[in-house]
């Protein structure tokens, strides 16, 4: 019986005007997004090649100077434009995308100046995620809002239920057909986009990309199911299709517009963090304390002879200052991460937000990618420091007074650039993606079943006459 219902509903959807318009809209949007992505990706890659070239040339120059120069100079590592950006852009343009480090510390992250045009009003990249979050959620509601109340108005509902068909099967059939129709639309849009990206773009198809595309389609199906459940709920609580439409639109506005847009407000209101000025004041105060308690002569300079006693005093002081600042700033960074993650969890009541977090994990981008690069850079910084210390230990002309800011009291010999360990950003492994995604997946499935259950209860009690 369920199959009959499903078949009827799917055919009904397939021949409907909304299916045709959705299909046209989705294909057009995916094509526009893919064309725009291919074009800007080429420009971004070109720019990144130049930045990376400068970064390496700079490092090479320092290594030719001395190993200490290389160790103490602060470098900025810039993240590469991601090949799967067309699936989920994850707001990478606005997120921190560069990390400042030296062999002694990973200091800070920043949003590279020039990664977004400040005169362009903030906008979403036309990635698959954006189109799906906007359009799929909308059409899923459009396919379901009048599923029950509309049929009641045309009197076919009473007719259907006069046959030996259970209410559960009827509702399930409607739900399944809506999900299948919407997913089919997304699939065609995705295929269009994929063809454009592969034909015009620089990156070919790979197993990883195929996996990401499948993951995206699964997330889109989940999104469609969630909104279809909300649409059915709107349909069964109202007595006529007009009201269920308004209810459905209200759901959509709340989930796609209101909740995601109140994140900044929620973050600042519920999880405040210290201001950057306070943190700077704390650092300055810590420096002041250290300077006051340092032995006299600690600040004396004379770089000619590495073995002058003041160099040891200064090296000790600089090291203490580094550690003090690192302690304060690392704590602040952790507070930022916490604020961001908690806010995300709070906005996860919206299926649209959930979908965006899921596709971010699927595509291995955005915040997850940054956090991985940030953690990996800490590991790399340790390696670089170990490498430098080994070089210094082998140098008999060095007094081995480690100073994180100056090139005076450690080895002054050059080092072959080829021997210096290099940082290579690796794509997120499967485990790195599944872990964070799981939390959102569970919330989404819970939300979906709860809403569907409510719709079912309401439908069982629905007066079909």
């Amino acid at each position, binding site marked *: 019986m369920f199959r009959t219902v499903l078949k009827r509903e799917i055919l009904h959807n397939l021949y409907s*005007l909304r299916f045709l318009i959705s299909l046209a*809209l989705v294909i057009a949007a995916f094509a526009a997004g893919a064309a725009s992505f291919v074009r800007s990706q080429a420009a971004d890659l070109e720019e990144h090649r130049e930045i990376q070239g400068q970064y390496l040339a700079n490092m090479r120059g320092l290594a030719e100077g001395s190993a200490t120069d290389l160790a103490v100079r602060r470098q900025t590592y810039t993240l590469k434009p991601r090949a799967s950006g067309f699936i989920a852009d994850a707001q990478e343009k606005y997120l921190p995308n560069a990390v400042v480090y030296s062999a002694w510390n990973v200091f800070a992250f920043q949003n590279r100046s020039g990664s977004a045009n400040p005169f362009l009003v903030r906008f979403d990249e036309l990635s698959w995620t954006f189109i799906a979050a906007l359009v799929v959620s909308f059409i899923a509601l459009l396919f379901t809002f*009048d599923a029950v109340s509309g049929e009641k108005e045309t009197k076919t509902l009473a007719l259907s239920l006069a046959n030996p068909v259970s209410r559960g099967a009827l509702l399930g059939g409607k739900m399944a057909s809506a999900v299948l129709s919407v997913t089919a639309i997304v699939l065609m849009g995705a295929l269009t986009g994929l063809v454009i990206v592969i034909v015009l773009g620089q990156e070919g198809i790979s197993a990883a990309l195929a996996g990401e595309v499948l993951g995206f389609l699964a997330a889109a199906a989940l999104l469609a199911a969630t909104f279809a459940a909300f649409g059915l709920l709107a349909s069964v609580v109202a007595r006529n299709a007009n009201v269920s439409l308004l209810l459905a639109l209200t759901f959509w*506005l709340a989930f796609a517009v209101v909740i995601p847009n109140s994140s900044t*407000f929620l973050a600042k*209101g519920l999880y405040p963090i210290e*201001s950057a000025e306070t943190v700077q004041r704390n650092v300055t105060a810590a420096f002041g304390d250290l300077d006051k308690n340092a032995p006299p002569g600690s600040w004396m300079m004379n770089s000619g002879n590495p073995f002058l006693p003041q160099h040891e005093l200064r090296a000790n002081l600089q090291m203490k200052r580094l550690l003090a600042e690192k302690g304060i700033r690392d704590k602040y960074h952790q507070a930022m991460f916490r604020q961001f993650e908690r806010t995300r969890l709070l906005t996860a009541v919206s299926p649209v937000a959930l979908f965006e977090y899921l596709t971010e994990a699927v595509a291995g981008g955005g915040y997850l990618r940054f956090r991985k690069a940030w953690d990996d850079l800490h590991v790399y910084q340790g390696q670089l420091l170990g490498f430098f210390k080994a070089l210094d230990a082998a140098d008999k002309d060095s007094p081995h007074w480690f100073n994180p800011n100056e090139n005076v009291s450690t080895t002054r010999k050059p080092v072959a650039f080829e021997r210096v360990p290099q940082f290579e950003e690796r794509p997120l492994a499967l485990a790195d993606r599944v872990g964070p995604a799981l939390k959102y997946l569970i919330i989404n499935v819970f939300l979906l079943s709860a809403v569907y259950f409510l719709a079912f209860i309401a439908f069982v009690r629905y007066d079909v006459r």
Partner: protein
Amino acid sequence: MIATIVRKEFLTNLVSPRFAIGFVLCLVLIPFSILINVSSYRERTAQYRVDRDAAEKAATEVRVYSKLRPEIVLPPEPLSVFGRGLSGQVGNRVRIWLGDKPFLAAGKTAAGDNPFLASFFSVDFADIAAIVFSLLALIFSYDAFSREREDGTLKLQMSNSLSRSTALAGKVLGILTTLLPVLVFSFLLSGLLILFSRDIAFSAGDWGRIGLLFAASLVYLAVFVFIGLLVSARSRSSVTSLVVCLFVWVLLVFVVPAVSANFAESFVGAASRDNLDRVLRDLDAKRETEIRAAFKAQGIPAGWSCWWCSSGDDGAMETYGNDREEFENFRRRAAVSEPIRIDHAEKRWAAQKAYLDSLARQARAAERFSFASPTGIFRAVAAAVCRTDRASHERHMDRTRQYREAFVRWLRGKDIFSSFPWVTPADPSTFRTEDELIERRTAGEFKTAREFEDWASKQTDARTRWLKLSTVDLPGDGPNDFPFLDVSDMPRFEVRPGSLFGGLGPSAFGLGLLLAAAVLLFYLGFIAFIRYDVR
């Protein structure tokens, strides 16, 4: 006759559930957006006060002119509560340098202290209005003809002695009279929230501008009502017109603005910031070479040694306790280097301006593309009305550049680069020779510098040299012996309050475009209805 139709439409709409739900939607969403933006305004005002006080303190607590670098802090725009425009992305702080013209403003963006929050979006009144008013307009107009045809009432109406134009006019007026109270109510509610908020105060001109925003919203609403009527008059069933209207809504309100920004970004390239930075670094290197060459030509030693020095960016140098010759060298160096620095600001600016122009070109292209949708036009008009558009920001930046010219003129008028107060507040009549200084500092132990150097070169620990010279503290050896500079005659940057109609030229164009669209759509709807088969 027409009054009867309008009354009937109005009453039917009023008792319909869509009116109740639409009204509640406005009742929830409008205060939500206003409260969020008032809170963000409060936060920015607090930050502005902190920044302004810090800037003022920094400008008054200097002892030498070379360290005087006033910082301009622009206050947040109260109207940004209604239309945020660019105010959350461009900074509000501009420091005045000699070697650089004001380029991009610094300062916290909407994300505040946590850069990750920049990845979250936030909406303002103009966005919510653009979304909700268009939706309401379509919801009330999509079934104007198609539903009545289905119910058979349209046929009934037309069998009376009623012209189609009167019927159409009645429909339009009926829908507008239903929506007008919602619009008025939304604006009144927002106005009340502003009035009762202690954190924000509007001037009379600001309220006038809110009036303009209201007029723009009305035209915007009318455009969507006419779209709904046109669709309704072109479709046979109300379900079809509903589906078409909703897709048109998503397309115009969400998809077109996003596509236009993306296409502008991809196909109207902006200059590379990295490239600009490289050009500027090269220019700076050239400037330093030029300055060194000028030193050499005039026989001024480029290196220096000083008793107490504090140097900084942009040629800042504060020094105390030197001998007469060293002070003279500092003075001569500044007299040569600072005019070169100011000249080079022009060269830097040529490159910076080309970069800014390319950014502006891209933003303009995005705006033009978005004019394909009434929502794009409405957002642009709202930002201009709220003084948060690009043009307003550029006006502010132009004024900071004019201020820099005034500041440099003021410095030049004092002939300050070639005078001692540029580097030290000490009176030139108190300057001494090196020998005198050594003798006094070592309490007469050494009579001449040569004598002291002979002794110092034999010491193994370099610190003893410094300890010996600190035997006697001389007045004027450090900054604490001098008062702060009196800069009461320095030109001040004045924050000019915006006028009622200032900078509205482009938005008048946008409004005209909306009106033209409204007239065209109305005409098309009229034709479609004349040809409509009412059976």
